[in-house]
């Protein structure tokens, strides 16, 4: 049975050859994953059955600073948009993170 058949069978509420499995890693645990396994691809390393096609990243660069007026108290800087869910705080006097 292929990984795809395994999940399709499961979603049809029938019995595949094996139980399909999945786990997502937060950015910090992903760093640990890379150190422990020398792999960069958890889905492949752990033989997970699912993959996630997604829309291509945006090419727009927008300064969102005026919408994100809530920098930590006493900090000044700007917030730069780097794609969906990827806003980076560039706080003055500190390296960006």
């Amino acid at each position, binding site marked *: 049975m292929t990984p*795809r058949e395994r999940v399709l069978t499961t979603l049809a509420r029938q019995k595949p050859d*094996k139980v399909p499995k999945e786990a*997502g890693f937060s950015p910090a645990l992903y760093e640990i994953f890379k150190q422990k396994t020398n792999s960069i691809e958890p889905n492949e390393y752990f033989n997970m059955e699912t993959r996630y096609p997604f829309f291509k990243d945006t090419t727009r660069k927008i300064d969102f600073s005026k919408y994100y007026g809530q920098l930590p108290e006493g900090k000044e800087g700007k917030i730069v948009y780097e794609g969906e869910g990827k806003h980076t705080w560039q706080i003055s006097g500190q390296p960006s993170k």
Partner: protein
Amino acid sequence: MYHFIKRVHPLNKMTNVSELQNYPFPDICSEYRCKYLKEDVEKIQTQNYFATGAVGHIFETAWQMYGMDTLLMGFITNQDFVSALLDKITDIRCFMADKYAKADTDMIHLGDDVGVDVLNPIQPECMNPVQLKKQYGDKLSFWGTIGTQTTMPFGTPEEVKRVVKERIETVGKNGGLVLAPTHTLEPDVPWENVLAFFEAVEEYGNYAK
């Protein structure tokens, strides 16, 4: 560092629909962002993997953008604004779902509770997975069941294996279960527990045995 801890809400100070209309929402509906979707799905399926189209959320996105308290108060005090916000997010999510459907993904995953075929994530801290299987196992399949507020961070590797085995034997009985932690794993999960999760699925998840 844990994620989901620091949030800023870009629409937090807004009150007028006109301000919302000027906000630079993602250009995800642009052709250049979705024209390779079908190709990507075909590639995944040719490699025999299961292609999930992740649409994201509607309600969750709304509170993340506007603030939980402001959104909940807005339902009473500023209905024009929150309606416009939810409509806008819903339009984007519908567009994405439509694109995924046309790209022939195997499943469309939406974060809001509208699930009809598969229930995810079944947090054992507040739902009884065995009871759900018993009541709805003929209508639903299940995705999740391993607690990320209990077993994954705080259990021993042996405990993780025991829970995985139990879920497979109960919820996974005769199929219908994709086993997964109930959310993204954070760094409070010991690496040994991550390994124990996958080892246990390998060890106990073979239906032919």
